[in-house]
Each structure stands twice: as structure tokens, then as C-alpha cells.
């Protein structure tokens, strides 16, 4: 066991950890040491090839195939220098006021979150794409939504020098997406924050992290770790957990905080989603241009959101329900396909939670509530109307049987798309907005941390990622994660005197 000592250790380098790393630069300027450990690799720019299988294996947990405990939903989350910010599409929305009010977290102020979010929007070059950079897949959604009577909005995106490769979810091959791997982490490293990759946090002990540095396997993408492979014990005055909803919750659960924090792992939400596909009579621009430019937000009124999307052949094939000739025919129409992502605004329930197995690995228990199923079916119907309003010849709907709805049946969408065809285990459902598990609140009786990420009863331990969300955000979460992480880091800076002094008094030199 190799011993190390830092003033502050941050676990995770995504939207939460990357933000904290940058926010703690003042500590480094004062002579303190700050370490970020990241489980995934740090890739060369040239290694972002856009090849589906290669990139999924390199950048996602379980290659993007992490399943819930009953195997009915795939959860996608990043595992790389920059975490999930490497593989998202750069959508940058501020938290809805209604959601933050409903969370009812003491001290969490909508205006404060908005201010911090705006600051990151500026730093990350967030803007709207010009109309001549919007492809047919997105344009058809916008026009179809308006024709079908839906209010359609444009996503602000954090891009700089986007060439329109459409490969955002496989890591931008042109370094255009302004995730933490391109902005906050390099800033932090330039200022003296140390980032060590391929380092898995095994357990948290009293003011220490037990971690394992993994060697790069033959043929694997990315640089070697900055440290020698082996087991480490890293002592610290403060530890900030930012490994994402699943990673952070599992780490605290296997570190025996379960008894002290009875709400640990609870309140997991994820915006369950599936992909709808429609075939147009002619080729459209779909696999060139940014894939996600528009959305329809019916979260407040109907519990769902529609977003444009475009996926790669295997992901598309996997997400289409069914098999055989009908499935193949849709795949062969790829250049004519328009895609819409249906997301349900799920709510925290007692049964949906994160746990660990005997080996300490994360296990996510999730059941689709009746409300979620209802929302997904309602959203599917809305998407079908939008497709046909945009001129589609046929629509593939996972909750219709047969799955393909011809244009001649457009007046029967409400009958053809039905909740009884939503069959967990057969209908492909996935989620990428993973939230909760270390929720904010008043005390250990109702939450894991306070409104600034301080773990109840453990002053040296903080949380700074999407696990803080007490309930679903109902929009794409990255900007809100950054704002909350910034608040948590600010609290560490305020408490640094006491935290680091206490630590030094109790640690050998």
C-alpha cells in the first residue's frame, strides 16, 4: 500500500469533479495540494475516432451496456478524463424554477443556481447553432413540431469549432465540445491541481481514500496512469465525491456510511428514454451536423420531453424493438431516417435506488412506474404526430404492434400506440441522465447532504455531482450539476481553514 497525502481529494472528473477542480484553484494558489482521481483513461485527441464500438468501450462504463438489476434498462454514463461531459451532446439548459422550488432544499436558491449556470455558459462558449448548421433531422423536427401544434425550443450548446461530425456521443473527434476535459480540468491542471487517471476509489475511510491505480491493458486507448499501478491510501483534509449518481452512491455505500445515512442510495431517477425512428421518402442530412438542436418540453404539463437525436448503426438497431425483415428494412433506410428521443420525467420513489452487491459493485434497482409508462406512451404519440407532420412515410414506435405505423394510419395513432405494448425486457429503454442517491435536504433523516453538498455529520466529506438531486431535474442536467458543484466547492473554500487545520493536526507530517 502506497501512502499519499493531499489537502483535498476530488473523486471524479466529470461535470461535478471537473468544476470542483477548477473552483479549488485558489487553494492551490495558497499553497495547498488538490488531487483529482478519475477511474477512466485520458485519451489523446487522435484517439477519438468516432468508431462506435471502440469509443463506447473506451469512454463508457461497461461499454455503455450497464444494466439495471432486472435487466430492463441500459444506463449510459461516461468513464474518462472529463466523465460524461466527454460523451454528452453539449446541451446546456438552466434548471427549471418549478423543479428547484419543488426540491425545497434549504438554502438552495433558484437565482443563485441561475447565476452560476450563466457563468459556466459563458466559460463554455454556449450559443445557439446558426440555421445553416442545422441538419434536416433537426429541421424536420422543428417544422413538424410546430405544424403539430407543439412549442419547440432550440438547445443552447457548448461548442467551439464544431464541424458537425454528429459523433458527439462517441466523444467529439474535433475537440469542439466544451466539456470539463476541454475547459475546467485543463485550467485546474495549469494552476497546479493534479489529476490522476485510471484510479478507482475503492473506499472512503476517516479522512482518507483507498484507491487502486490500474495498468493500461494491451490495445486499450488512452495514456498510462500518471501514477504507478497499485494500491494507494490517500490521506486528505477534505474529500469531495463526484463520481456521478451511481459511482458516488456506491462508493459511500461500500464505505459503511449506510447506517449513518439511511437515505443513501435512495431517490434515484434517470429520465427513462427510448428512440423513435421515422422513414422519409428521400435521403435527409441526419448523420452530419450536430445531432441535438431542438426539444419540446412538456415536463410540467404531461411528464415528458422530446429531443432530436441521431444514433449510430448498432445503437439504432439495438433501440428498435423487434427483429427480422421489418427491423432490417428500417436499418436499410438509414439515410432516410429521422429520429426523436422520448424522455419521461420520472419521480423519486422508494423502490428506485442504488445499492451495492457483495463485492461492492453498484446495483441499480429501477421499476417503471405507471406514471412513467403513461408518459412514455403519451410522448410516443406526440412524436408520431410530429414525424407525420414533417412528411414521414412511416414511423417505428416501440409501443405499437406491429411496430411500424404507415402514413395511411396517421389518424389512428392514439389506438396504435398503446401502453399494453410497453413490455419491460423487450421494449428497449435507456437512460443517460442519472440523478440522486446522495440527495440534498435538511438532515440525515431525509437526505445525505445539506444544500451545499456537506454530508450530514461528516464535515470533511462532501458530494458534488448529480447524486445531489433530490428528484428528477426534468431537463438535461449538466449545467445544473456544474452549478451545484460550484456551490459545494465554494463551501469547501469557506471551510478550508478549519478543515485543513484539523487534518494537519491529526496527520503525520
Amino acid at each position, binding site marked *: 500500500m502506497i501512502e499519499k497525502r493531499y489537502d483535498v481529494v476530488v473523486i471524479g472528473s466529470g461535470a461535478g469533479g471537473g468544476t470542483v477542480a477548477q473552483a479549488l484553484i485558489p487553494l492551490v494558489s495558497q499553497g495547498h495540494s488538490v488531487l483529482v482521481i478519475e477511474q477512466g483513461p485520458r485519451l489523446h485527441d487522435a484517439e477519438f*475516432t*468516432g468508431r*462506435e*464500438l471502440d469509443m463506447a468501450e473506451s469512454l463508457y462504463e*461497461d*461499454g455503455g*451496456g450497464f444494466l439495471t438489476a*432486472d*435487466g*430492463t434498462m441500459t444506463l449510459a454514463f461516461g468513464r474518462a478524463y472529463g466523465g460524461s461531459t466527454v460523451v454528452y451532446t453539449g446541451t446546456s439548459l438552466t434548471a427549471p424554477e418549478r423543479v428547484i422550488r419543488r426540491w425545497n432544499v434549504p438554502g438552495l436558491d433558484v437565482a443563485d443556481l441561475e447565476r452560476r449556470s450563466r457563468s459556466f455558459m459563458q466559460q463554455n462558449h454556449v450559443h445557439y447553432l446558426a440555421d445553416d*448548421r442545422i441538419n*434536416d433531422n433537426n429541421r424536420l423536427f422543428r417544422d413538424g413540431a410546430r405544424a403539430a401544434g407543439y412549442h419547440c425550443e432550440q438547445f443552447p450548446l457548448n461548442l467551439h469549432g*464544431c*464541424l*458537425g*461530425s*454528429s*459523433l458527439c456521443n462517441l466523444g467529439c*473527434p*474535433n475537440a469542439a465540445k466544451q466539456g470539463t476535459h476541454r475547459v475546467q480540468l485543463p485550467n485546474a491542471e495549469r494552476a497546479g491541481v493534479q489529476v490522476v487517471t485510471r484510479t478507482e476509489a475503492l473506499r472512503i475511510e476517516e479522512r482518507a481514500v483507498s484507491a487502486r491505480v490500474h495498468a493500461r491493458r494491451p490495445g486499450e486507448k488512452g495514456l498510462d496512469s500518471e501514477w504507478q499501478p497499485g494500491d494507494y491510501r490517500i490521506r486528505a483534509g477534505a474529500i469531495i465525491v463526484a463520481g456521478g449518481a451511481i459511482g458516488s452512491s456506491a462508493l459511500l455505500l461500500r464505505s459503511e456510511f449506510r447506517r449513518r445515512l439511511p437515505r443513501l442510495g435512495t431517490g434515484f431517477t434517470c429520465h427513462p428514454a427510448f428512440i423513435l425512428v421515422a422513414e422519409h421518402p*428521400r*435521403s*435527409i*442530412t441526419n*448523420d*452530419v*451536423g450536430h445531432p441535438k438542436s431542438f426539444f419540446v418540453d412538456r415536463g410540467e404539463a404531461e411528464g415528458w420531453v422530446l429531443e432530436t437525436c441521431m444514433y*449510430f*448503426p*448498432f445503437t*439504432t*438497431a*439495438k433501440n428498435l424493438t423487434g*427483429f*427480422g*425483415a421489418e*427491423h*432490417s428494412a428500417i*436499418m*436499410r433506410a*438509414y*439515410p432516410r431516417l429521422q429520429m426523436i428521443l422520448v424522455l419521461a420525467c420520472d419521480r423519486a420513489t422508494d423502490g428506485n435506488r442504488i445499492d451495492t452487491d457483495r463485492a461492492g459493485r453498484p446495483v441499480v434497482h429501477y421499476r417503471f412506474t405507471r406514471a412513467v409508462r403513461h408518459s412514455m406512451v403519451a410522448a410516443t404519440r406526440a412524436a408520431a404526430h410530429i414525424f407525420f407532420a414533417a412528411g414521414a412515410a412511416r414511423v417505428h414506435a416501440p409501443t405499437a404492434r406491429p411496430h411500424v405505423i404507415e402514413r395511411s394510419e396517421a389518424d389512428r395513432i392514439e389506438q396504435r400506440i398503446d401502453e399494453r405494448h410497453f*413490455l*419491460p*425486457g*423487450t421494449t*428497449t429503454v435507456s437512460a443517460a441522465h442519472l440523478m440522486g442517491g446522495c440527495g440534498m435536504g435538511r438532515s440525515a433523516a431525509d437526505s445525505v447532504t445539506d444544500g451545499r453538498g456537506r454530508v450530514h455529520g461528516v464535515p470533511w466529506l462532501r458530494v458534488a455531482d448529480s447524486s445531489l438531486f433530490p428528484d428528477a431535474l426534468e431537463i438535461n442536467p449538466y449545467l445544473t450539476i456544474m452549478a451545484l458543484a460550484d456551490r459545494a466547492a465554494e463551501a469547501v473554500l469557506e471551510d478550508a481553514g478549519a478543515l485543513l487545520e484539523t487534518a494537519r493536526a491529526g496527520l503525520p507530517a
Partner: protein
Amino acid sequence: MDDQALGPHRDTFRAFAATVVPEMTQLDPAAWEDVERTVEHALARRPPAMRRQLGLLLRAIDTLPLLRHGRRFAALDPVRRERLIDALQRAPVKLIRRGIWGLRTLVLMGYYTRTATMHAVGYRADARGWDAPRDDCS
């Protein structure tokens, strides 16, 4: 199960795969090996229990038709194969449904990540984005 998860069940796997993606009947031996290498690679990273379950599922798919048709799955005609898989993917038992979903996912991974397949379906994404030459679209 051995290192090669598909090894003892190759005929059943190929028959299942060709039912999920009918075009796979046209794959030559090298292309099949390509598909199976991708599937084996994915399975190698999964827990041994999952590989064992996959073996059990393939064995069940292989032998179930014996009860009704007196033939193994690979010996069935395409229509009967399709009917059986359709029944299994809608089975009342979730474990069976998710097993079929998982096997189907492996087939699709093996087939649709091949460069030749991507060309065949018309996938044209290019790192150069709008600057890449394209011969279609409005």
C-alpha cells in the same frame, strides 16, 4: 463455460442471428468469424455467470422446438424460427424476455459495427462533418 462462450452453441447462435438479421444468411465464413469475435470480446468482459446464462439460453432455444416440431432450432425453416423467437421475446416471464433481448443485442452488435454493414445501410458519418464529401441529401 469455456473461454469461447459461443463455442458449443455456434450453430444455434448463427441460426438465431440469421433470424434476427435475415441478411446474415449471406455472410461468408470470414464475416461470421468477424461477428463472433466481436460478440466473444464483449462477453469476455462480462461476469462468468452471464456467460453461463447465455449458454443455457442458447441450449433452450436449440431444444425447445424438439417438443413441438421434432427438430432443433437450426433445422427449422425461417418462419418457424421467427415465430419461436417472437413468442420468447413476448414471454410472460421477464427473465426469458430479457435473455432474448440480450442475445439479440449481441447479434446486432456483432453485425452492425462491421464496416461493411455500415456502408451497406448507408451510414456516412465522418469526423470532417459538413466538410466531408457527400453525394446525396438536400
